[in-house]
Every structure is written in C-alpha cells, then in structure tokens.
C-alpha cells in the first residue's frame, strides 16, 4: 500500500519546510525548556545531566514526570512507568502517521522518528502535502530539539532570575499549546469534529468523577474511535 502523499519534494527540501514551519511552536517549546532548566536546578541536576536528559529524551512531559520522582535512591520502576504513561500518546501519534512516511529507508525511519513531535504530526495530517513527510517531521523535530536544548541551558544557567517568578502559573501552558494544535485540526474541517467531541465529553465526565489521567486518555480515545468506526460502517451501508 502506498502512502497517501507521494514524495515530490526530497528529504532535505521537506526538512527545510519543517524547520520553517516549526518556528511558532519553538516559542512554546522554549518556554517549557526554560521551566525544565529551572526545575532541574531545584532537583539537584548538574547542567550536564540536564542537557544529556533533554537531548536524549526530548520530551517535556516525560522529563517533568521523571523529575517529580527524582530522589535517591532512584525509584527506577516508578520513573519508567510514569514516563511510559505520560508518553503513551506518542504511540497514537505514530499510529496516525503510519500511512505518511513511505519511500524512506527503514534506517531513516528508525532514526528520524525519534524526533517525532505532536505539532509535526498535526501539520502532516492537516496539510496532506506532496512532500517527504519523514523529512518534514525530522526538520520540524530538529528545530524544536535545538530550541529545547538552548532553552533548557538558559533556564538552568539563569535559574536564579526565576526565583521570584510564579512558575506554577505556567503549568497550564501544556494544555494551551495542545489547544492551538487542536484548533488547527478543527479548522482543517475534515469532518472528524464529532469524534473529538465524543472524546472530549468522555474525558469531561471522567475528569469530573476524578479518574486518573492515564485511565482517561485510553478510555476517551476508545470512545472517539468507536464513533469513527460506526460512521465508517454507516457510510458503507449507504
């Protein structure tokens, strides 16, 4: 089965498009990077540890989850389980772009998918252009990675400047960034709003009932998937 978009642009050209289009999200990434740098200082990290973790992991949610459990002796199992739970949405992101990366070697896919990011997936699914989507995702991810590393270093180095700032107020910045991505999806007008609304309603009900986030995520996603399957079968009947 061929991918949806034939690769008219090469890997490098598509990568450059990804770099250019990532710039708006580099701002929010930088914010999280600074926050992580400040939090890393508070958790007793060295600058080398912060940068190694950020460079190798490149995931704000996973790194903050690990940081919350960072006490010696390190609770390895708890840290890894927590990191897996907060990163499980990556599995869904990877699933959703599995039709879009054809025409690239297996090695290239293994290497480049390590930089797969939420906004890159949103842009790939929204635009459906004739570009090399793996190159695009790589360029997008590489630019975000650079801004992530620089901002972590800045946050670490200038953490004393943020002592007075109320950084807890920014804990909602993650959902805000996701809301921008969600609006990009909704405005692309591809008729999936009903499924997303069902997921949102299920998540709302479960949140009001105080379910844990790692239970809400799969349940709400399954609810949306059930609706899309029903819609698919109904279209076939028609």
């Amino acid at each position, binding site marked *: *089965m061929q991918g949806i978009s034939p690769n008219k642009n090469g890997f490098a050209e598509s990568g450059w498009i990804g770099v250019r289009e990532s710039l*708006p999200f580099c*701002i929010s990434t930088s914010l999280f990077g600074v926050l992580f740098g400040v939090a890393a200082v508070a958790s007793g990290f060295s600058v080398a*540890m912060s940068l*190694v973790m950020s460079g*190798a*992991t490149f995931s704000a949610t*996973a*790194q903050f989850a*690990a940081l919350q459990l960072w006490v*010696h002796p*390190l609770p390895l199992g708890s*840290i890894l389980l927590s*990191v*897996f739970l907060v*990163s499980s949405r*990556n*599995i*869904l992101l*990877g*699933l*959703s*772009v*599995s*039709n879009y*990366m054809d025409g690239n070697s297996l090695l290239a896919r*293994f290497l480049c*998918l390590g930089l*797969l990011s939420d906004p890159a*997936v949103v842009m790939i*699914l929204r635009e459906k252009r004739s570009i090399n989507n793996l190159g695009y995702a790589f360029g997008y991810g590489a630019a975000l990675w650079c801004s992530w590393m620089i901002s972590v270093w800045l946050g670490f180095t200038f953490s004393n400047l943020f002592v007075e*700032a*109320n950084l807890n*107020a920014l804990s*909602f*910045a*993650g*959902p*805000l960034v996701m*809301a*921008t991505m*969600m*609006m990009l*999806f909704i405005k692309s007008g591809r008729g*999936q709003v009903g*499924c*997303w609304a069902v*997921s*949102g309603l299920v*998540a*709302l009900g479960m*949140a009001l009932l105080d379910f844990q*986030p790692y239970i*809400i995520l799969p*349940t*709400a*996603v399954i609810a949306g*998937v059930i609706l*899309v399957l029903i819609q*698919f079968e109904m279209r076939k009947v028609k």
Partner: protein
Amino acid sequence: MNKLADVGVVLLLIAVVVYLTRISGYFLGQRLRHIGRLRPVLEVLPGCAMMALIVPAVVHGSLVEFTALVFVITVMWRQDNIVFATFGGIVILFIGEPAFVWMQSNFS
C-alpha cells in the same frame, strides 16, 4: 561514581522508553494499515488524545487558566496565529492571578 553510573543508566532508560513510544506506534500502524476501516481511525487518534488531555486540565483548572484557554481558542479561530495565541495565553497565565488579586483588593 556508582551514583553517577546509576543516574546515567536511568537517563538512558528514560530516553529508550520515550523513543520506543515514538516508533512503536508507527511500526504497529505499518502492520495494521491494510485493514481498510483502520485509516479513518488512525486519522482521528491525535485529536482524540489531545481532547483527552486538554479537557481534564480545564476541569481542574482555575478561572485564569480558563480565560487563557478561551483567548487561545478565539485567536486561533479568527486568525490562525499560533505565535499570538500561545504568547497571549502565556501572558494571561503569568499576570492573570496577580491581576485578579489586585482587582479584588481595589474594587471590592
């Protein structure tokens, strides 16, 4: 030295876990994509996941956070301007609480 080695191993394992979550979904999708009804399912997954993450955060959020979210949605709906939406939302988060306290102390 042992402590440093332990930290290095933990950092490596964290990176491996995150990397595996990034590639496993893609390669699983490659195996399953011949199933016709799966394509529409794959395309709604990210949106469903985002809704499942945004909505609980809003439910447990404050009035300032809700205001910031409304601002972001409005800007994105009207202008599609990611930079303005994100930056404005973050400014609201930063100054919202102090501004709210200031208004309460001056106008009540």
